[in-house]
């Protein structure tokens, strides 16, 4: 079965909520999600982020929903790590 293990996302967000709350909201969108967030660029009202999400079976839809809820928008998916796991 194909499972997404890692996603590298390019995201634009307003200054509020701050990066900690933003990362926590994304981490809360799945049962075992781990989030690494880096601010790439900061403008007057917005911040460009690189977000790396790791998990056993990532669901991109729920991550996008969490990003939208926080007022952010997904610009691109810049990297993925998918594995094919066979269940016995």
């Amino acid at each position, binding site marked *: 079965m194909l499972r997404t293990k890692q996603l590298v996302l390019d995201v634009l967000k307003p200054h509020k909520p701050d990066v900690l709350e933003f990362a926590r909201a994304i981490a809360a969108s799945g049962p075992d999600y781990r989030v690494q967030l880096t601010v790439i660029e900061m403008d007057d009202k917005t911040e460009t982020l690189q977000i790396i999400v790791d998990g056993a079976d990532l669901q991109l839809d729920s991550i996008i929903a969490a990003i939208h809820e*926080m*007022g952010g928008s997904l610009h691109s998916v810049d990297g993925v790590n998918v594995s094919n796991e066979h269940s016995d």
Partner: protein
Amino acid sequence: MAEGFFRRAWRLIQLNRSHVIARRYFVVNGFDGALTMLGLLLGFSLSTPSDPAVVLAACLGAAIALAMSGFSSAYISESAERQLEFRQLQDSMISDLRDSAHARASRWSPLLIAAVNSLSPLLMSLLIMLPLWLTERGYALPLEPLLAGIAIAFGLIFLLGAFLGVISGTFWLWSGLKTLAVATITTLAIYAFV
């Protein structure tokens, strides 16, 4: 469930810093309410003795008017400000934020701020009117009700100043004494002109 609701509500409030605006309105309009009641009570105390029921009715009328004015003015101005802020944020994000927490915050925060701006002077006024109301109900007070009301007004004005001192990190007593000085100048002005 209630905890989740309050946490979400607190997050929305923090999102556009409504709590800071509401706190400012609480002090500003609370001060308005206390000073208006102080003026009314001083005016009544300087005029021919009035029936406490008449004083109470006049004060209650003024308190309700202050509350209505506080709600409508804050709601209209804050709605306009929040809508502008939200539109500017949408323009910066170049995306539709209608389903985001920011949209909900911009809808709800004017109501919250208006409620604070309305209830703050009403609460101050009701506390200042309390001795009059108690007298009306037949309770005997150690002080004459108008004087007791004036004393409560001074006390509340001092507390509002002290509160400002606490939140600004300055010496609360000094801050309280400054607002008390404003109440004293108001009293002297009323004595001078009435």
